[in-house]
């Protein structure tokens, strides 16, 4: 599946919910189902500090594919982290760099990515792209 196909899939999943409460309950479930994050990577190097919640993001790069694992101390943030990992993990650097992310807005969670919220999510998205850019230039120079 392409990044856009996954985004469309997420939009469809959220379309079945009637109100915000159901959407957030689903996010909470997603947050709970996020695979455990390796405690050894909970270091300042992988920490994305928001004022309201914290996010940790750990990348690995193998056979041209980037895998992300991530974590947050707040459950709703973690639910959105799970969605971002679903969209971005297991992709080539080029796919990530070229991606146009529209699903967050479509599922009514845009406020969660506003810079004033300072929950670490916007910075997490930027950081994912930065890792992708770094791996991309590494590929091109090897």
């Amino acid at each position, binding site marked *: 599946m392409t990044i856009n196909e996954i985004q469309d899939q997420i939009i469809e999943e959220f379309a079945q919910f009637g109100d*915000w*409460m159901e959407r*957030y*309950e689903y996010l*909470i479930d997603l947050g709970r189902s996020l695979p455990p994050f390796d405690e050894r990577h909970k270091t300042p190097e992988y920490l994305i500090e928001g*004022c*309201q*919640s*914290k996010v940790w993001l750990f990348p690995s790069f193998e056979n041209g594919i980037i895998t992300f694992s991530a974590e947050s*101390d*707040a*459950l*709703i*943030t973690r639910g959105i982290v799970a969605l971002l990992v679903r969209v971005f993990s297991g992709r080539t650097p080029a796919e990530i760099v070229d991606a146009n992310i529209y699903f967050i807005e479509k599922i009514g969670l845009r406020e969660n990515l506003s810079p004033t919220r300072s*929950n670490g999510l916007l910075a997490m998205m930027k950081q994912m792209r930065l890792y992708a850019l770094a791996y991309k230039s590494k590929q091109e120079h090897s």
Partner: protein
Amino acid sequence: MKLAKSIEEIRSDFPILSTKAHGKPLIYLDNGATTQKPLQVINMMEELYRTANANVHRGVHYLSDLVSDRYEAARETVRAFINARSREEIIFTAGTTASINAVAFSFGERFVGEGDEIVISGMEHHANIVPWQMLCERKKAKLKIIPFSDEGVLDLEAYRNLLSERTRIVAVTHVSNVLGTINPVKEIVAEAHRHGIPVLIDGAQGIQHGLVDVTDLDCDFYVFSGHKVYGPNGIGVLYGKADLLNELPPYQGGGDMVANVTFEKTTYSVLPFKFEAGTTNFTGAIGLAAALDYLSTLGREAVAEREQALLATATAGLSAIEGLRIYGTAPHKVSVISFLPGVIHQYDAGMILDKMGIAVRTGTHCAQPLMERFGISGNIRASIAFYNTEAEIEALVRGVRKVTEMFA
């Protein structure tokens, strides 16, 4: 004590209270961050711009006289509100933060040197920490911290022991913005004065909840912000005893604060103008006076009483929620209640409450050392004003219950 108006009348004075948030009636419980403004303030500001705008103290013309008189009348309103001895002791600033920075600079220049000590408490807002740290860095002085108990009560014994020959000033908050504790500032001042040490009181969370009498407290400085006492943004007050203010150098230079300027030497104007360089926020000052008048008309003791009743409802309701922990259980508190429901993250709870139309604050509330003291990364704060209702408090309690169910 009875409020001079019914709650319905009061609420209709605050048009913003009928806002809908995410389609639900707004329940505004973030009054510690900023308070809403009554029509009496809003209309006053508008009327000023329509009818009385000119620079203050700088013209001989009709409008300038008009607005200068009103500016000075506003100063008198503030003086009377906090019971200062004279108008010259009331300096208008941009807010609490600006006032503390002014004192930290001017007082520091005059009285603080290497090896000297500044005493603050462990429950201060960053605004009453950082300016003193900056001073300490400039002068190689040391910051000493008064500890407090789990309930949120300052340790006065420890405070007494902290005072030394090297202590130059004590700066403590009247009321903790997180714990709600009303500190025994009168005793704190008296103790410092026994050693000849002046005291600054951060009144940002004190001024709006009842009576503040700086003559009775005998504090040397008292500072607060207009926006937290139902007045406009960008205006604040620095009260200082005249004798002390006269000894301090000005912290900003410019127009209006000078008596005579030549390129060789400038002499400074008298109080309060010495500390009001440049065109001041005179509209803000007049708006602030309107806010103080509003509170006085309602009855300040009645306001405090109503807030205490709402606090009692909130405390009882929230305490009944299993696993919920309240931060700040001092015997003397204002209507501020900080809490965490079980292990639920404050941001998660805040997001869900927001969706219900309930505005609370989440995070560290600009008091990181306090959070560290409790070993938490932040909490949720409901700060209640007299215009809140019992029904709103009940909605908060129901909302928090719902949150605990969602995250159970």
